[in-house]
């Protein structure tokens, strides 16, 4: 059984379709929820968190609906996108209150542990209204971890955090994922998602564009050339030979670098050594330019 199941989910606000017919199943590990602003990420996360009901379709956690069984929130932590918290409380009071709502038996102790986890102990007695954006983010993540949930839904958890805190949060999320927790992290900062998650859900205008391992998604885009950068001792000669043998769709030259558009990567990588030998050139660098998440994202969204 999957931990989270999203089955043909649609969410409409009057005439506006925020999420349209989205389906996927998630198991343990970190999944990045990606999409441009207004794509429907927050709406989808809220439906997964049971805070919004879908117009049609079904969302379940461990096979049950969160909207009907709130006890499931013992197994799930949710970090909302909104930066507003209970401004009149201190950070420590907020976590104690959250632990009380989570029905933990020792709220003070759990709040203290959570504050330590996100390095907010020195700010414990400061009013939340005086917190920076980064501190608020860390506090929100802390409240979602108070009860050690099996599932974590984090809406833009890194927004506003400073580089050091980003690294700490990324390490924490990745470690929790490796520990077997099911984590969904929404973000628009692709390289950060790439550092945390191997699996992505990519949505655009409410529609599911891609789901799965982003490298596998990239490989499945056979209709679009892969871009490869090569540094060689004689770029003109190698470029001519690659074109002659129809291993590339096009090349551009810049100094000792060739950037080639490759339509059949397997054939290209298989034959490149022999072609280089035949051309009598020395290959010093070979880099795939669009194997990263950003390329996948840009391509699919465009």
């Amino acid at each position, binding site marked *: 059984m999957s931990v989270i199941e999203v089955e043909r989910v649609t969410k409409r606000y009057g005439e506006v379709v925020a999420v349209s017919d989205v389906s996927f199943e998630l198991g343990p590990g970190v999944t990045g929820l990606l999409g441009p602003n207004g794509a429907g990420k927050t709406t989808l996360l*809220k439906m997964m*968190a*049971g*805070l*919004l*009901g879908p117009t049609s379709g079904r969302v379940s956690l461990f096979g049950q609906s*969160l*909207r009907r069984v*709130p*006890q*499931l*929130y*013992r197994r*799930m*932590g*949710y970090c*909302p996108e*909104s930066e*507003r*918290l*209970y401004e*009149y*409380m201190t950070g420590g009071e907020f976590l104690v*209150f*959250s632990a*009380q*709502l*989570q*029905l*933990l*038996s*020792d709220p003070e102790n*759990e709040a203290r*542990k959570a504050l*330590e*986890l996100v390095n907010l102990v020195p700010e414990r007695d400061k009013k939340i209204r005086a917190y920076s954006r980064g501190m608020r983010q860390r506090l929100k993540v802390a*409240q979602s*971890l*108070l*009860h*050690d949930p099996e599932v974590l839904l984090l809406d833009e958890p890194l927004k506003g955090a400073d580089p050091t805190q980003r690294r*700490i949060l990324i*390490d*924490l999320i*990745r*470690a*929790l994922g*490796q*520990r077997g927790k099911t984590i969904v992290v929404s973000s628009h900062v692709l390289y950060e998602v790439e550092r945390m998650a191997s699996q992505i859900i990519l949505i655009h205008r409410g529609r599911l564009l891609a789901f799965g391992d982003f490298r596998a998604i990239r490989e499945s885009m056979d209709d679009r050339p892969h871009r490869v950068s090569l540094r060689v001792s004689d770029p003109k000669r190698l470029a001519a030979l690659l074109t002659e043998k129809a291993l590339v769709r096009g090349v551009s030259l810049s100094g000792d670098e060739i950037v080639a558009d490759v339509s059949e990567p397997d054939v290209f990588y298989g034959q490149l050594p022999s072609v280089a030998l035949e051309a009598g050139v020395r290959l010093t660098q070979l880099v795939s330019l669009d194997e990263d998440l950003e390329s996948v994202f840009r391509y699919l969204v465009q």
Partner: protein
Amino acid sequence: MTEKSRGVIYDVGYRPYEGPYLGRLHALASLIWDDLKRGLGVKKGWKYRAIIILLLVIELGVFFFFLVVSQLGELFGEGIPQFLLNPYTAFYETSTFVLLFLSALVAPNLLCDDRRYRVYPLYLARPIYTYDYLLAKAGAIFGILTLVTVGPALLLFLGKTLLAPNALDYLGEHQREFWALLAAGLLINLFYASFAMGISSLTTSRGYAAGAIIGVIFFSDLVADLLAVRNSWAQLLSLNALPLRVKDWFFFGKLLSIETGQGFSLEPLSPWIYLFATLMVMALSWMVVWLSYRREVR
């Protein structure tokens, strides 16, 4: 990160929760306690607190006025209106002004901000029900109204008892009035808490909600006064008067004729009609609350 260090949670200080879970009532108690503090302005600015304190002072003034006047009335007897001699029925009539402004202050403060700043997911992504959240709000509003209005009413009873020639005799003779005073206060506060919640759930603006609560009550009074010159039924339009009529009949055993202020005196309707109308306004308010929250939260 090396392969060896991967997945070692304690590298970043993570410690899982291993303790037991408490029951839902603990969460409800925490919510009510937090809302009581918010509603009373414990951690809010001085302006909010000053208004709360002012309303409490006015209510204590009402208590003091009735205590002194009723004592003087007993001493000098002649010419003093009956309601001043036995002030319990009149106490809440005079307090409705305070109740109205207090409910218009507290209910929007507790309901509107949570929605305006979208913090209610933080409350609701917890093992509690939506109605726990709403019950806590209602409990806190009701608790604050009760503290500020029923508290002085009971003080009035205590004062009258202590100033009586024989306190124990007074207590024995007026026991029924004590319970009537308490129960009537609770009913009137429940009415105002429900109505204020109903209006506050329709908007995210505290100002609009407060204005609407005060405006609807005043407007309904005005319309009732204009239409009720010869028709007792039009008095039902006065939202403010409904729980007071129930109080008169149900708790103090009398239903006074209606003075229209234009020289007419109208016979009151059947007390059951006032009770029905009061319960309907409360039910309608709760329906509005539920419909407003049903769409956004589970």
